[in-house]
């Protein structure tokens, strides 16, 4: 039994690339779910997906200029993500259209431009790598970059946490204190872009958003409190990284989809048997008698 556990859980991490991928995944798991929780609570769940597409042209340009250089591809991704966020915000302000419709237009343009750029300068293998990531490519430089970006995100998020909570709940309270709500929103979108840029190496540009959103939406079935959502989201993301990497290793399947599918399975199970709003809770719900103690 122990030998089986060793073979399944520990032996894969005898390989350096698996250890690096795990550490990179755990670093991303600390930074991504809190951002996902705020995206979800602010009704911006699909904005994360749009931003994931927005980084693609920059990543592709970095790839064209410097090959598989993670720092250059990341820099390109951050710049193009921020540019699209600013353009979408500006178009929304100038035209009065909702920000999500401007974002949807720009992410489609970005996706097409990114795929075009990669195709011009590389093969379909390169395109697959950029779109879906690969654990094999996580070298020490990539690991340091991912851990560094994740650290910056966690620290910045801690600094703007209260402003973000107030802006999500009651933007007018924040404005009344002299804060610019658009500044808080901009910093938050910047963190989302940074996180997606850090995640594309292991998960790919299209699936990096999965590590943000799936743990957050899954946590909603287990907690009604903000701290609970964030804590549970981080735990789910970490478990998904570990589980996904092991599945990827043993079944010889791509690591990015394996990690996201692992998180997706957690979402489906939680939707069935979670503590709040799940199918099980709905089926077993009975009105409490008057005077009964309140559930927490």
């Amino acid at each position, binding site marked *: 039994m122990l030998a089986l556990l060793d073979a399944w859980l520990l032996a894969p991490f005898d390989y350096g690339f698996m250890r690096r991928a795990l550490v990179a995944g755990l670093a991303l798991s600390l930074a991504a779910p809190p951002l996902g929780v705020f995206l979800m*609570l602010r009704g911006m769940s699909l904005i994360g997906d749009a931003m994931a597409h927005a980084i693609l042209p920059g990543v592709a340009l970095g790839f064209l200029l410097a090959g598989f250089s993670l720092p250059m591809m990341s820099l390109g991704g951050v710049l193009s993500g921020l540019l699209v966020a600013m353009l979408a915000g500006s178009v929304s302000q100038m035209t009065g259209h909702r920000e999500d419709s401007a974002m949807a237009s720009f992410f489609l343009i970005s996706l097409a431009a990114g795929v075009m750029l990669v195709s011009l300068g590389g093969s379909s293998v390169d395109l697959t790598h950029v779109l879906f990531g690969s654990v094999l490519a996580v070298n020490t430089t990539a690991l340091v970059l991912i851990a560094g970006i994740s650290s910056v995100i966690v620290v910045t998020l*801690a*600094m*703007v*946490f*209260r*402003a973000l*909570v*107030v802006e*999500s*709940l*009651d*933007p*007018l*309270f924040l*404005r*009344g*204190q*002299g804060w610019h709500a658009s500044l808080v929103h901009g910093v938050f979108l910047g963190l989302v872009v940074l996180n997606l840029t850090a995640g594309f190496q292991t998960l790919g540009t299209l699936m990096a958003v999965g590590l943000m959103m799936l743990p957050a939406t899954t946590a909603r079935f287990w*907690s*009604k*409190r*903000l701290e609970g*959502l964030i804590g549970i989201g981080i735990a789910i993301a970490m478990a998904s990284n570990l589980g996904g990497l092991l599945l990827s290793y043993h079944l010889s399947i791509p690591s990015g989809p394996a990690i996201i599918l692992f998180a997706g399975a957690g979402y489906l199970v939680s939707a069935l048997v979670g503590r709040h709003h799940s199918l099980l809770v709905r089926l077993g719900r009975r009105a409490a008698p008057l005077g009964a103690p*309140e559930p*927490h």
Partner: protein
Amino acid sequence: MVGLMETAPTARLQLHDLQLAQGNRTVLEHVDGAFRDGAITALVGANGTGKSTLIQGIMGILKPVAGRVNCTVPKERRAWLPQQLALDLTFPMSVEELVMTGSWPSHGALKGYCARHYRKGREIMARLGISHLAHRPLGELSGGQRQRALIGRTLMQEAELLLLDEPFANVDAETVDVLTTVLRDMADSGVTLIVVLHDTEQLARLADEVVVLANGHAHWTATEAVLQGRTPQSPLVPLALGLTGANAC
């Protein structure tokens, strides 16, 4: 127009020849006046006369086209309670957590709460009769309970200037009584309160003086004058000021 403020040149909130616009439309102009410290001033006027615009101007959210707002109250001691619909009620926050957010502007962004903060929060909730709701999510509260929690946040903030936009809309009679007492206590302790009101009964109970908004101008006047229909725009009647209630014509 100049009103009762002439007796209070050192008031913490003064308006000087203020002009405010929404887009290209001037809503208020030549507004001159001071709000008496430690008093409750009611803002009355029919729909579209600029009550919310004036509040936005005072809070610094709407920049004046001309003139200026002189406010010596520090930003972290200014509180604005808009109508309830501005809140995202799906946000996972309990009553106690909402009340505690009132300490954020002065307490800072990174420091945690100490026992003194929690004790003060509990005292405020007890004063507002919402101690039993401390852990209940905001989305599960009635309109009156939510309004008490929001007033609790301003108490936690130790606001010195409090602006309220129709605080008694959609709340129960008991909440109106509790909030009236709390707001009066705040004024007695020196807080400057500006309250948008639509009900003559509440005006009679609460307001020390009244600012009437009509035709793009503001007129400071005594509460009794409004209740008796003797406003600077005589012969205005309460209904013309958007007022309803037992005393309205």
